[in-house]
């Protein structure tokens, strides 16, 4: 085994390191006979999937941990073949339909129909239903969500859904109202440090990092436990003794986005727009989602600009992010936001120059 994230992942609700109240609630839900459809939401790396896995174990016992991967082939109406990897056990099935883009409806319908029409054959199973976990539910298309909604009503006897999403805002209201919403907030700094110390203590027996080192890593991760553990793993490989100074490696794209933000603040001109565009293209060609790009760059710009502009920068980021979701050509919206911000920043200084002294009596 090589992956700390998986290796030291809590398996039971009792083993979870933080959000104990939530764990209690999930436990009592699982023990009651009446388990609802659920929607877990919260920032990435907060532990949604870990909690889902633990809940499943609570529901069905250790049998859910016997996983196998199935490659399923679906056929679209236009006879295109879609390969989808499906992780399943005897009691549940887990899929990420958004991976097939616009064809997610096909995948959802096929899988749900199949699950809903088969009865649990294992007599010793604790529950009659199977659980379907849908990852990245917030990037499902409208069509897929509509398909989901109908099946949720129809097949409750044989099936329960657990949706996993970053935010509920992109799910249609009928789905939200059919689920029990469970928010998994990002853990606090102390929580992350606690997790890191636990993992480090198990993983690097002889020379585990001290509290200070863990704090540095946790600070960098900003509430994303998965990121924190990955950073720890990378750090262990580069700096096995955890000697000072501790430098936490950041993903390249993050540094890249920040420098793009700097570029926007430094100069505002059509030529600079071209340069920034080239950077966006580079990011997009590395499979960085455009929403992540606009968010990271905007965060950086907000850090750098004058207090009076911060709200505007975010306002436009929100507007263009929305357009990005509706539209097709992501680069247009990224660039439109960039130009808008440039023009706001430029005007801010420009206007100071103009109104400076003459206008006031």
């Amino acid at each position, binding site marked *: 085994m090589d*992956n700390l994230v998986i290796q030291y992942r809590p398996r039971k609700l009792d083993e979870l390191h933080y959000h104990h109240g939530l764990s209690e609630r999930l436990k009592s839900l699982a023990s009651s006979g009446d388990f609802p459809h659920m929607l877990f939401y919260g920032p990435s790396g907060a532990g949604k999937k870990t909690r889902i896995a633990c809940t499943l174990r609570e529901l069905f016992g250790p049998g859910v941990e016997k996983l196998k*991967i199935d490659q399923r082939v679906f056929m679209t109406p236009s006879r295109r073949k879609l390969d989808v990897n499906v992780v399943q056990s005897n009691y549940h099935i887990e899929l990420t339909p958004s991976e097939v883009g616009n064809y997610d409806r096909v995948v959802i319908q096929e899988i749900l129909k199949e699950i809903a029409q088969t009865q649990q054959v294992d007599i010793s199973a604790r529950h009659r239903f199977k659980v379907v976990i849908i990852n990245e539910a917030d990037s499902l298309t409208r069509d897929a969500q509509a398909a989901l909604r109908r099946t949720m009503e129809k097949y409750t006897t044989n099936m329960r859904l657990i949706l996993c999403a970053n935010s509920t805002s992109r799910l249609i209201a009928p789905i939200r109202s059919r689920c029990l919403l469970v928010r998994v907030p990002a853990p606090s700094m102390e929580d992350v440090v606690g997790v890191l110390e636990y993992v480090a203590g198990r993983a690097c027996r002889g020379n585990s990092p001290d509290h200070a080192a863990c704090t540095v890593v946790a600070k960098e991760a900003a509430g994303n436990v998965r990121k924190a553990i990955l950073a720890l793993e990378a750090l262990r*490989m580069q700096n096995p003794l955890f000697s000072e100074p501790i430098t936490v490696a950041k993903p390249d794209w993050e540094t890249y986005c920040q420098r793009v933000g700097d570029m926007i603040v430094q100069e505002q001109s059509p030529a600079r727009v071209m340069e920034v565009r*080239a*950077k966006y293209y*580079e990011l997009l060609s590395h499979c960085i989602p455009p929403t992540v790009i606009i968010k990271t760059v905007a965060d950086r710009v907000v850090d750098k600009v004058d207090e009076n502009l911060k709200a505007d920068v975010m306002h436009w980021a929100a507007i263009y992010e929305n357009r990005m979701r509706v539209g*097709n050509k992501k*680069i247009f919206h990224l660039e439109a936001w960039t*130009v808008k911000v440039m023009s706001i920043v430029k005007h801010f200084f420009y206007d100071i120059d103009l109104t400076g002294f003459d206008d006031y009596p």
Partner: protein
Amino acid sequence: MVCDWDHRVFCHLLIAWAAAQENRLWVDKYAPETEVDLAVHKQKIEDVRRWLREAFSTQPISKYRRLLVLTGPSGAGKTATLRVLSGEMGFSVIEWISAQQSPLDAYGYADENISGDDLYESAMDKFETFLARAGNYRSVFNNNPAQSSSSDSPTQNAVILLEDLPNILHEGIRQRFHSAIHRHVQRSTIPVIIVVSDAGVRGETEEVGAGPLRWSRNNEVSARFNPIAVTFLTSALKRVRIRAGAAVVSDSVLTNIVESVSGDIRAAIMALEFTAVRAGAAGSQKRGRNGPANASLESLTRKENALVLFHLLGKVLYNKRKGDPPPNHATKREATNLRKIDSKLKDEPPLQAWFNHEARATSRVSADELYSSTPIDASLFSLYIHQNYTPFCATLEHSDALIDNLSWVDANGGDNWYEQNPYAFHLYALGTLHALPTPVPHVGQKFYKPELFDVGKRAHEASNAIDRVRGWLSDRSPENASTWTRTAVALELGVVLRAKDMGMQKPPHGHGLFSEMRFVHGAGNAEVAGERETGGVPVSEEEPKRRLDGDDAQGTWLEDDDIEDW
């Protein structure tokens, strides 16, 4: 008895053949048979002939003469040249004719019940089989069966002619096409000649040409045919007139035809036949009045007068408006012409005072006209505008208005293609014209091709790399498969993967496609889009270099910048 029957069948066949000959169009009937009849420029013919001679020769150069791409507008005599040379040089032409599509193929899918993949053979499958067979086997009608197996047989040479290409605009098909050609070129000695008619600059030529170029620089030669010159065309038409005995067509009509077809000899001969038939029919009733024939001639032969993309962009981005001063290099006549056009343009009604900043002089560009003559659809049009607009903006405010419009129009369609805004083209064009300064400063702007497609391709490669990494992870534990979605791998796993690269357990190489990014200053590496694609890359000094991973990297040089990273 048997003999008699045979004879009768033969006679029938002969009559049928003769009738078919009679009914053929003039284009086929009077196709050129010798080089003298060919209306193509002598130099061009010589080029192709030399290529063929080299291809058939036993010299080492023949290795580099495996793939010839003939491009040019339709009716420039590409295929005719080949046919004539085939007669002259004595080689046979194996032609790919895409078979009649069954209704099944035509829809692209079969009814679920009768489907079954084994029954269905796509056009591309057929093509691949054809190419493989054509490369390996000689014609059964070969005169010299003893020599047919060896490639050095001088008597019976053959070329494979591909005119009817599969739908190479589709990415998957294109890749298969390229690899089929590539395989053929590597294995077989029979040269392949691809004929591509480009109807305007629609990018199809590049798709064929640039692809093979990319993988075998040495093997591919391309020859471009220009529209046929007026003198050649006239004399060719005259020859056809004599051979067809169509003296009814007067010289003036002939000149009209030549003028109206803009170098398309096929269209010219069709028009000639048409007028000859009409004049013949009319002549029996009333002689000498070919006025109406003349009038209809234009509508018959006029090609779709598509604006070349280059001009289309120029029209929009230079944003000429009523009252703009004529350009410096304009002659007096051009200047007066402009003034005349301006006087015809109506002034826009005045705007309310609070809206005055949006007032513009009437544009010399009409969006409707632009739309009817555009060679590209709205989406591609918007990409071209987006790629090229910045140098045309004098200030950031112009850019802001322009890109905001692009973004707005793009976001105002529905989820599905059929919900797309039908006025998108107009909105893109008008919004762009409205946003740009007037007049646009001339600073030697160049037009570039949209980079987006290249970016898409690279993103696709990167996402394949992500899938490889995910496969590698889930081989280790199925639990990994559910934890590491594509986004999670792209965003978070990079750090660990790179750390692992230095350690013992190597992840699949190629993850650099998504995990590695180096920040370089500079503005993109778009290709100049011209009227003639030359493939030159003007701004590429600081083209972002992506480091090769794993095995590939060992054979390459490290550059100064790279060393700090290692």
